[in-house]
């Protein structure tokens, strides 16, 4: 009996130590993301830094190395540098799929746990975990909203840059408005830049006498669009639908701004989700391998407060 108690106590002690040990287990997580070249990537950097502080406080043995790169080629170099430092996990938002598939494969071959965020690799077998927003849905939800609200009318579209993400959003939008009387008058690239979107919108306003709504799929561009409409003093435009979830636009939605009635979520904080899940894999032994796709939630006046981050730069 006594033996048993001692045995139990020892076992309890051992497991307690084991627990403490698990928290102190030394894990190095590398986070490789694009540099803050526009609002959304700025948000990614912000949320990655926030998550780093939080996770390192929660798991004392965890060391997170955060590295931003201005383009695909330098990200490939950064990945090599990070690997030589001896990492256990890599969380990466690749600049583009094709260029970075092989560099990430090389990291994987070293036995590193690989989490890919937002942009899928050409070979999905490389990743252990994939966390992403849903670009097709972002377009579809916006299209659906315009279809439901307008029923029929003329819409202009401002695209981002000619890359896969943008292409998927366009397809989703077309799917969303399918079977309605909505007519897309024009599609031009605004490069996800406020200034370029301002210009394109000014030109749309000169070109088209009647526009019912604008879909510009990105909140940064929506800023430029609103300014151009205000300048032209046009009243035919009923509303503008952006996307991503920039704090200023979420605030407009919450305040009931007639021009920005909704926003479609594509949150840069997904990087933090990916880092949390990756850490959970090492410390909490939770099963996380697989794909984790975030919804393109329609933000309306009712739920806007849930998605408002006043301290975020984006």
């Amino acid at each position, binding site marked *: 009996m006594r033996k048993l108690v001692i045995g139990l106590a020892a076992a309890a002690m051992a497991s307690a130590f084991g627990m403490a040990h698990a928290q102190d287990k030394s894990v190095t997580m590398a986070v490789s993301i694009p*540099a*803050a*070249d*526009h*609002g959304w*990537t*700025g*948000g990614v*950097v*912000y949320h990655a830094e926030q998550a780093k502080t939080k996770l390192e406080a929660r798991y004392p043995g965890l060391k997170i190395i955060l590295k931003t790169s201005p383009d695909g080629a330098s990200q490939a170099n950064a990945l090599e540098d990070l690997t030589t430092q001896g990492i256990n996990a890599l969380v990466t938002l690749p600049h583009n799929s094709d260029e970075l598939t092989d560099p990430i494969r090389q990291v994987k071959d070293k036995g590193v746990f690989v989490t890919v965020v937002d942009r899928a690799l050409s070979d999905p077998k490389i990743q252990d975990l994939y966390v992403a927003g849903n670009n097709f849905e972002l377009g579809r939800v916006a299209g659906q909203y315009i279809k439901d609200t307008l029923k029929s009318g003329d819409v202009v579209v401002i*695209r981002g840059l*000619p890359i896969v993400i943008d292409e998927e959003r366009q397809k989703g939008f077309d799917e969303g408005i399918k079977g309605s009387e909505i007519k897309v008058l*024009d*599609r*031009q*690239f605004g*490069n*996800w*830049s*406020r*200034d*370029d979107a*301002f*210009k*394109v919108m*000014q*030109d*749309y306003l*000169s*070109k088209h006498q009647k526009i019912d709504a604008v879909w510009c799929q990105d909140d*940064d561009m929506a*800023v*430029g669009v609103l*300014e151009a409409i205000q*300048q*032209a003093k046009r009243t035919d435009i009923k509303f503008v639908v952006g996307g991503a979830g920039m704090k*200023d636009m979420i605030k407009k939605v919450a305040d009931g701004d007639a021009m920005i009635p909704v926003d479609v979520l594509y949150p840069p904080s997904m990087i933090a989700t990916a880092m949390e899940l990756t850490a959970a894999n090492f410390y909490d032994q939770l099963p996380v391998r697989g794909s984790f796709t975030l919804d393109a939630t329609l933000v309306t006046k009712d739920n806007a407060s849930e998605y408002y981050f006043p301290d*975020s*730069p*984006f």
Partner: protein
Amino acid sequence: MGARHCLSHLGGRNDCGQNMSTNTTAAPRRAFANIDLRAVAPFFALAVLFLLGALVNTNFLGIDNLLNVLTRSAFIAIIAIGATFVISAGGLDLSVGSMAAFVAGTMILFMNTGTVTGDYALLGVAMLIALGIGGLCGLANGLMTTLGRIEPFIVTLGTMGIFRALTIYLAEGGSIPMKSQALRAAYRPVYFGSVAGVPIPVIVILVVAAIGAFILYRTRFGRHVMAVGSNEDVARYSGVSVNRVRTMTYVIQGICVAIAVLVYVPRLGAATPTTGLLWELQAITAVVIGGTALRGGVGRIWGTVCGALILELVGNIMVLSDLVSEYLIGAVQGAIIIIAMLIQRSLARR
């Protein structure tokens, strides 16, 4: 040999042709005809573009559209006027786009502190600070090129990265917006307002260009700029302080960037990571389209303004037309710019 090269260059220009060409009596009259046509050529290209625009879309000639385009060209035009000085003196400044973002960022951050009471007083002080920062950025570029004796390409490539990174650092990766809506409202007319139907940014282009033209064509400093750009050694032997002149051109460039920022900030009320992206290339293109030689020694302020307008018009016509797929716009823009240059060349040869 070098001296003759320099003098013929100096004599070849319209404005000081008289005082210098007395030395080169043998300069043929034909040279004058050439130069005149070259100065006119960018305006001819502009006229052709107007015609093209009118054919593409009837709304193109609408007064609103034309004023939009004119107003939009202000940033590049004003920066390119500064670039005309730098390039005429044989230099190059790749940092102007990043510098614009940096000046805009610091200016807005100052306005957000609200240390000066009264909206207009605050705006005034902020503008002076912006001009000061622009001038200092230019001075840094100039001193590093001249005193450091480093190629301007390398110096300004370096400062391009530095200014851009500083802006992103100040913005903590996001954008730097003007916080006070009242201040924003007070400042807004600088971009959107107009005097007697002429938008304020257009007036700013004209004033900056007039001052620039006066300095470049009518002052001793302007003549020194050309001399340094034509032949540095000859200028030095003639007693021109080459380093001081070069440095000054960078300071002028910095001030021009700051003036462009003064007009840029009220438009969207924020500095973002995309502010000023690739403006350096557009400014240099505007300068070259305007007839200024990249190798230095020739500078055309009004040609530069015309070049900036051409660039902006090409973009506008592309959006207004339905003929070109949105994927091919870049290619057509490139082709139009090359054709505009070819038209110029053929005019100049005649």
